[in-house]
């Protein structure tokens, strides 16, 4: 079974050879300068090693230790080159959003201005300390008792230690700030450094503070993103920029197995590009239930197309918007109804049938939407059952081992089949959103053929997969399942490659969904 290889995203080994380059750009060399189009992995070497698909994105997974180490390295480097304290180097780097080159360049040019802007002001040496000053009154709590411990940064704005602690507690715990906490003085831009914080806050708060600081490192860098899976602490590095998102769908896979889009953070939505996904989700949130209800309970005014609900009363309708008078039953002009007011039997009359045609037309767009929505929702529903399927598979594999005497390795084909079903359904789901916004051109037909092939393959596999254990033990069925699994995966790759190529070339034409 090599089918897993076919659709796995770039694994660690794919990107290892890029790691040197990646680290360069991670240092921020590309700040403000457009990089050449991201290399989608079509280097000679990689082609020889393993065929890489156009829809595969190059990326790298970082664990919390890696993220910390990267920051420490940068801080050390700046600390050595500029000969400044490590705390100051860290503040400067955060101020420059971790763009080391720009920091060093600017600092060489105008060190005083850089320090001032970053809140480091004119400096005197010496570590921060709490002091007792005679005659001091804290401007925050108005405390002035003798022996009051107070603290001031180099800006000289002095407050009592208690107030400082309260202030930091508020900023760190309640407001989630870390890298840019300023002096409490109104208008003072000086930023609290880590050493001062160590002096002022409890250890519990320090942990939270350092956590938040680490977060800013990832959040500040365009090419880094947190894995959005619950409890996952990894970050992903990927060179895809915001402006590329209409041409690629950068799906990445974290080491925690979560597959998501680097562009928007949502779960893998290939082949649909981010913008389309956003539009579709919004439409579904607004429309789907409402649309169903409208379809079942309302009609449009034959004259102005306003949607009307008849919530009681007779068939004589007067449109509130355009004042058109019509019959609810036949949709014809009310004036032609004569005396048969409460019992319309005029179905064959001309004005009525014309109005009903128009009505039908306006329903088409709604029905078109519902067509795509229902298929999308169906695959989503099936995707939600993924977990069930997976646990069922495991049980099946165990009972199959006992029932047929097959070894563990011999029943792995069920695991592969389950995996293929899940991934393919996820893709299929988004093909329907994709298709909803697609204009009808020649390319669309090819897309729909691909979609149909994949859908049929998936449904067939799904049916085989649900067979009872005694049938599964049949070697013939096993071969069929294995064949179908690899066929599904192949169809998925074909569909994704085709859509990704056309997306990269700007070949798709979009409609607004009507």
């Amino acid at each position, binding site marked *: 079974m090599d089918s897993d290889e076919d659709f796995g995203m770039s694994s660690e080994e794919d990107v290892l050879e890029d790691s040197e380059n990646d680290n360069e750009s991670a240092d921020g060399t590309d700040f403000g300068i457009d990089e050449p189009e991201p290399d989608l992995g079509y280097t000679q070497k990689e082609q020889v090693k393993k065929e890489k698909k156009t829809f595969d994105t190059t990326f790298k997974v970082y664990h919390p230790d890696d993220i910390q180490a990267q920051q420490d390295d940068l801080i050390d480097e700046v600390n050595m080159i500029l000969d400044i304290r490590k705390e100051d180097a860290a503040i400067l780097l955060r101020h420059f959003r971790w763009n080391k080159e720009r920091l060093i360049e600017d600092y060489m040019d105008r060190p005083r201005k850089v320090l001032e802007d970053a809140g480091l002001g004119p400096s005197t040496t010496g570590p921060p300390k709490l002091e007792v000053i005679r005659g001091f009154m804290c*401007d925050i709590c108005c405390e002035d008792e003798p022996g009051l411990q107070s603290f001031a940064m180099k800006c000289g704005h002095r407050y009592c230690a*208690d107030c400082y602690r*309260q202030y930091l507690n508020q900023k760190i715990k309640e407001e989630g700030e870390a890298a840019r906490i300023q002096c*409490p003085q109104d208008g003072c831009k000086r930023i609290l450094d880590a050493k001062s914080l160590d002096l002022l806050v409890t250890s519990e708060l320090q942990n939270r503070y350092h956590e938040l600081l680490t977060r800013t490192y990832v959040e500040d860098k365009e090419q880094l993103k947190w894995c959005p899976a619950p409890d996952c602490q990894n970050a992903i590095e990927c060179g895809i920029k915001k402006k590329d998102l209409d041409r690629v769908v950068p799906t990445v896979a974290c080491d925690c197995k979560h597959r998501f889009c680097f562009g928007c953070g949502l779960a893998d939505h290939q082949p649909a590009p981010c913008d389309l996904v956003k539009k579709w989700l919004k439409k579904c949130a607004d429309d789907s239930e409402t649309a169903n209800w409208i379809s079942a309970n309302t009609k449009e005014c034959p004259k102005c197309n306003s949607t009307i609900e008849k919530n009681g009363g007779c068939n004589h309708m007067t449109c509130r918007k355009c004042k058109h008078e019509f019959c609810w039953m036949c949709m014809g002009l009310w004036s032609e109804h004569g005396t048969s007011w409460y019992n319309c039997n005029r179905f064959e009359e001309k004005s009525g049938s014309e109005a009903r045609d128009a009505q039908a037309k306006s329903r088409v767009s709604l029905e078109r939407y519902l067509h795509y929505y229902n298929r999308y929702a169906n695959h989503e529903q099936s995707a939600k059952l993924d977990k069930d399927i997976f646990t069922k598979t495991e049980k099946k594999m165990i009972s199959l081992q006992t029932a047929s005497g097959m070894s563990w390795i011999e029943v792995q084909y069920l695991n592969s089949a389950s995996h293929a079903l899940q991934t393919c359904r996820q893709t299929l789901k988004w093909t329907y959103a994709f298709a909803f916004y697609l204009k009808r051109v020649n390319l669309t037909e090819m897309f729909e053929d691909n979609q149909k092939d994949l859908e049929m393959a998936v449904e067939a596999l799904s049916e085989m997969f649900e067979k009872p254990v005694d049938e599964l033990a049949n070697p013939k069925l096993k071969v069929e399942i294995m064949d179908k699994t690899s066929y599904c995966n192949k169809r998925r790759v074909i569909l994704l490659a085709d859509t990704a190529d056309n997306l990269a070339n700007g070949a798709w034409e979009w409609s607004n969904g009507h």
Partner: protein
Amino acid sequence: MAFATKRLGKELKKLHESLPPGIELVSAEDFQDWLLDIRVLDANPLYLNQTYRLKFKFSAQYPIEPPEVVFVNTKDRPIPMHPHIYSNGIICLDLLGSQGWTPIQNVESICMSLQSMLTGNSKNERPEGDQQFVANNRRRPRDIDFYYHDNTV
């Protein structure tokens, strides 16, 4: 509450001693709710000969947290017309939100900021969406995320 009480006690003492022109202390019975009146000092026709009433609400975290400040409507104290003041008295001003607030601000400085906010305004209008906001808002002012997009008024 000890934290806020001490500071408010000092502020109150100072307010009793002297107040900037156009600001009057109406009531400060406890350290939770205070009422103050403010007037605009120049001849801005929008606010001429008017007095406005402010209600301050302090939490135990004051002055680390900003106080809640709203205009209140009484018989002879209307809600001033301003593109950042809703007709229910809620004020959209950055220094009253956690982003713009610093513990160095106090009751007096807030009053003065509001005076100058009114003085500098020439638009006889309510914020956009005032009707809807007033009809639907159930949140406390401090929980509302205002957009401080327009700093010209």
